[in-house]
């Protein structure tokens, strides 16, 4: 058993840090004790460090189940960047031959990121069974409760997968879990006795602000005011790629700032460049959908603006939590126009199969089965193939829809509350907060003083991106002599 001193010494020599962040040490110790742990640690805690640290102590492989395929590749890149070269991601993004190569050489890897759907593939699972697995990590564990961000029922297979792998030590990590969610996660994963290590979700250095508008023009004008005034860099989150594109173009037009979009429609090349231009402060503002930021490690983001309201408080906490990882004063602003939630309602309708659809599918399955299914039909088919009756499926999705609507309503409650925003948010995660002051939020009729909080930037832009360079000078910069 390693003493606290040993643990700290390793931290210094492996990672260069003097001290653990809240919760890191506790989780590491319990895992090394062989306990299964659910760690609820605030955004920005450095959850990767936990399993990377354990990986350095234990012999076998560390499997990390992660919800978003795009996020996984980012994490692999980051692990490699941190020196863990034996890291790989097995996802449906891999070409068939790459996948075969990885699976064949699985024992060459120390850290393996894998999606729940891949683990549900029996060949893949069989290959893992041949190896010594020292730690089984489920990242963004709240997704189990939400059935994965895209309602992938494969998330529910994790319970059987853990049994199949002979129950390796299991670590579930999330930044956002209320007590109900904690219970639900434990039940769905089949480990009711796992230890819970929970730290406050609060991020005291992030001011919370919600601004309400009656029209889009007001909203845009205020956005323009904010981006000019606030300290850069920052992220603006959108629920729609189309709006993200349009607002990005508009801001480019109206400001002298370097503004770029980032979302799933971008090709890999552009994504790479924009991420790294942003990390190296060549971009002031990113207009993004939630795809951005999950994997990147940038600690000086000063503001996160939500142009559309997020679907639930969990997503909100995740996204606004990208600000201020350096501990310095930062701000989260939600720009809310009456009825903005319509977009979220539509999203719910677009993802959850309706009763009519389910009826139609069950009644005409024999005629439909040779067709290509869309996402919703695929989802129904998943349950159909597993022998669920029509009514069971209708109930499942009914319940799911209600949960989503409830979550959205809680989000709206946060937006509309006249009281302390932070208290509202933390109450949702079963915490009590009563220290509202002028640097907390703009609830309780508080007027936020951005100047006093050191959130205002004198300089217009961070840095001008090198523009229109001649090839000769580019070649010169590339190679050091």
């Amino acid at each position, binding site marked *: 058993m390693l003493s606290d001193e040993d643990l700290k010494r390793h931290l210094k020599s492996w990672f260069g840090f003097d001290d653990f962040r809240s919760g890191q040490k506790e989780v590491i110790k319990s895992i090394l004790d062989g306990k299964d742990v659910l760690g609820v640690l605030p955004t920005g805690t450095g959850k990767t460090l936990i399993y990377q640290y354990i990986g350095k102590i234990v012999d076998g492989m560390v499997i990390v189940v992660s919800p978003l395929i795009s996020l996984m*590749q980012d994490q692999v*890149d*980051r692990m*490699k*960047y*941190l*020196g863990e070269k034996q890291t790989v991601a097995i996802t449906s993004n891999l*070409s068939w*031959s*790459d996948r075969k*190569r*990885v699976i064949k050489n699985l024992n060459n890897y120390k850290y393996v990121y894998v999606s729940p759907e891949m683990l549900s593939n029996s060949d893949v699972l069989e290959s893992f069974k041949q190896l010594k697995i020292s730690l089984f990590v489920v990242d963004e564990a709240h997704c189990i409760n939400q059935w994965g961000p895209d309602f992938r029922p494969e998330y529910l297979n994790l319970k059987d997968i853990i049994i199949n792998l002979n129950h390796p030590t299991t670590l579930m990590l999330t930044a956002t879990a209320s007590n109900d969610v904690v219970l639900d996660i434990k039940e769905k994963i089949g480990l009711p006795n796992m230890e819970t290590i929970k730290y406050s979700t609060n991020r005291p250095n992030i001011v919370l602000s919600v601004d309400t508008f009656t029209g889009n023009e007001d909203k845009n004008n205020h956005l323009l005011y904010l981006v000019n005034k606030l300290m850069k860099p920052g992220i603006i989150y959108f629920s729609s790629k189309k709006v993200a594109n349009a607002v990005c173009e508009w801001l480019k037009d109206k400001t002298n700032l370097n503004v*770029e979009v980032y979302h799933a*429609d*971008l*090709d*890999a*090349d*552009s994504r*790479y*460049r*924009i991420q*790294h*231009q942003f990390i*190296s402060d*060549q971009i002031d503002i990113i207009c993004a959908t939630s795809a951005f930021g999950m994997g990147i490690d940038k600690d000086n983001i000063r503001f996160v603006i939500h142009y559309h309201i997020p679907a639930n408080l969990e997503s909100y906490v995740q996204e606004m939590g990208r600000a201020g990882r350096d501990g310095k004063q930062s701000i989260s602003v939600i720009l809310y126009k009456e009825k903005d939630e319509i977009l979220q309602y539509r999203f719910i309708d677009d993802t959850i199969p309706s009763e009519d659809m389910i009826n139609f599918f069950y009644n005409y399955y024999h005629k439909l089965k040779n067709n290509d299914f869309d996402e919703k039909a695929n989802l129904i088919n998943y349950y159909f193939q597993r022998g669920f009756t029509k009514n069971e499926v209708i109930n499942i999705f009914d319940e799911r829809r209600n949960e989503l609507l409830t979550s959205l309503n809680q989000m709206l409650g946060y937006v509309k509350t006249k009281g302390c925003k932070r208290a509202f948010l933390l109450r949702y995660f079963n915490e009590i907060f009563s220290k509202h002051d002028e640097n907390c939020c703009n609830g309780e009729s508080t007027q936020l003083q951005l100047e006093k909080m050191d959130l205002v930037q004198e300089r217009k832009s961070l840095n001008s*991106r090198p*523009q*229109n*360079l*001649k*090839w*000769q000078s*580019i*070649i010169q*910069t*590339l*190679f*050091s*002599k």
Partner: protein
Amino acid sequence: MNKDLLLLLLSSTQPRRIKLIQNLLNGKRTVSTLFWAMRYGILQYSAILKTYDLNSINGSIKNLISNGFVKQVDEYQYQLTTRGQNQKDSLKESFYILQNTSYQYDYNVNDFKSRILLAIQSVSEYSYQNKNYYPVKTDMKSAMIVKRWFVQNKSEIVNRLETYLTQYLSQVDEKKANIIAQQMIGHDVYGMTNSQLANIMGVSNVEAFFMEYDGWVDFINYIINDNDQLLLPLVHDVRTLKMNHHAIQTYKQFVNGNTLNQIANNLNVKLSTIREHLLEMAIWLPENKFPYSKIVNIEDEKTLRQTFDNQPIDSWQFSKISERTDINFFEFRIYQILRSKQDVK
């Protein structure tokens, strides 16, 4: 899809199917797509936007119609109006469309680009003695090719690569050289995205894509032909023949005197597949390279000529001939390809 590009691919004299145009640009190579692309005179643009997101073509066509540039002919086909033709004539002067088109080769620009960028990046970081960086994204095969290349050339690599790049860039047009150099990634250098490039050039995204694409194709050909073989390993498999290799095999057997049935037997494929292969080859090859007379004999040719002589090739109906002769669709289509090639001359 960029509406200017779509306009350039439409015609005022020939109704064209926009779905087919989209399939062609995306690299779908069914015989029917290739045949009609040849008829439209846009075969050389096959697969040029394979790796470029075309978005919706319907939005663009609606826009062109509402601007009075295009009219709809039937459910699938569209045609330029006079106004549209005038617009096309002026766009031809200003719009940058891919120059490096070829009937012979496909270039996997994407693979090449990620390899050369990774190679430059790794050498650049090496020159700064930096080991911790995020490598450019590539597939595993490309990453392995670059890794092997780096290890084999490690001594002197910084100087050699810098010299190579300088030599190449100094012999191409300054503007093109800048475009290529602006893509490069290395130590604290992240280059420009497609839309950043488009912005500073003052062109549309798809034009910037074409400019860059042309630059990479030039570079690939330079590397293949250059005496200094430093970068040769990076172009492995990047340039491939457009024609599918099964089709080439069929073609070779056919030219060597095998009958269609014999070829089908030899290659163990269906007769209909053999016919598809030959149609594809006829479309790609120049007229004198394909033995048309071995498929359409003098007698049949006479019948076909008499039936269709005064009609535009696009509107020939197979039913006109199938009812009263035993000429099959394959022979009919081969003759249609032959006449198309002769017409162009």
